[in-house]
């Protein structure tokens, strides 16, 4: 399986439709402080089924913080949507998606109404999305999504916490 696209609409500072092609090899992301780079990482983690607001830098401890909350010139939005396009031409995705060549996983949230998930247009539970990603070792808890300032967490963590991270990767 390969990740091929990340699409955002109304997620944090990405008010308008945005599409990031995830090409092979190394894709660099640059830009001034506060422009929205780390928000892209959070979009990825959130769409994989992250359920804890603690892991998503948020203010009011609610996932509504993920929705564009307006600027001096634009009103806040009421929904946010993030989708990941997976290229499964290698047919390595777990059942029941093995035969499908392209898998689109979408998470959408509506202010005060919580979020829902869709895989190729069909409504699914958070659990289904989490299992799909866990199988590829790419889920929201993946040790390979290293948030800003957290790289040395492994070093500063307690030995029992480190073993749990190892278990994720096992």
């Amino acid at each position, binding site marked *: 399986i390969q990740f091929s696209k990340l699409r955002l609409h109304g997620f944090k500072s990405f008010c308008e439709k*945005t599409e990031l092609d995830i*090409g092979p090899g*190394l894709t660099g992301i640059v830009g001034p402080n506060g422009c929205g780079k780390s928000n*892209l990482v959070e979009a990825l983690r959130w769409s994989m089924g992250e359920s804890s607001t603690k892991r998503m830098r948020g203010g009011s401890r609610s996932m509504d913080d993920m929705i564009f909350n*307006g600027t001096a010139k634009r009103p806040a939005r009421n929904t946010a949507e993030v989708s990941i396009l997976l290229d499964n031409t290698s047919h390595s995705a777990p059942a029941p998606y093995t035969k499908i060549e392209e898998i689109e996983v979408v998470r959408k949230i509506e202010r005060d109404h919580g979020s829902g998930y869709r895989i190729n247009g069909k409504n699914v539970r958070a659990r289904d999305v989490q299992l799909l990603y866990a199988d590829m070792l790419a889920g929201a808890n993946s040790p390979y*999504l290293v948030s800003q300032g957290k790289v040395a967490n492994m*070093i500063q963590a307690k030995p029992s916490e480190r073993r749990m991270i*190892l278990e994720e990767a*096992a």
Partner: protein
Amino acid sequence: ARERLQAAFDHVNGYFREMFTRLFHGGKAHLALIESDDPLEAGLEIFAQPPGKALQSLTLLSGGEQTLTAIALIFAMFLTNPAPICVLDEVDAPLDDANVDRFCDLLEEFADRGETRFLVITHHRLTMARMDRLYGVTMAERGVSKLVSVDLNQQFDFLDAVA
């Protein structure tokens, strides 16, 4: 589950020694399961000894050395069980130029294997120069992020323009 974790530990430990020595240009490091004979209850301890220094507690390492040790561990897990995507958000911030180069050497090696795609967020010019493609995020309209593709040859013009 116990055998799986023990096997994973053995692999990660082997790769960790290798990654550490490559990132530090020498020295030695290893992992150990402590506090219990049962891997599922044990804790994971990290021993790191930069080249020419005495073996000591992790907390005495410098900011850059701790980051480099953490990167060695992430890469070791990676080699044991690769994933289709890896995202690194400014992990190169505390590193000096020589260590940024070594970090990028390893990244390029992983990227060339073709199994994994990397998203690397950075402010370091040396790291930007090693990418296959660059995206810029701007807030031309304040508070609203936009993604633009940046021509690799004009990366520094982009940074000066949006600063």
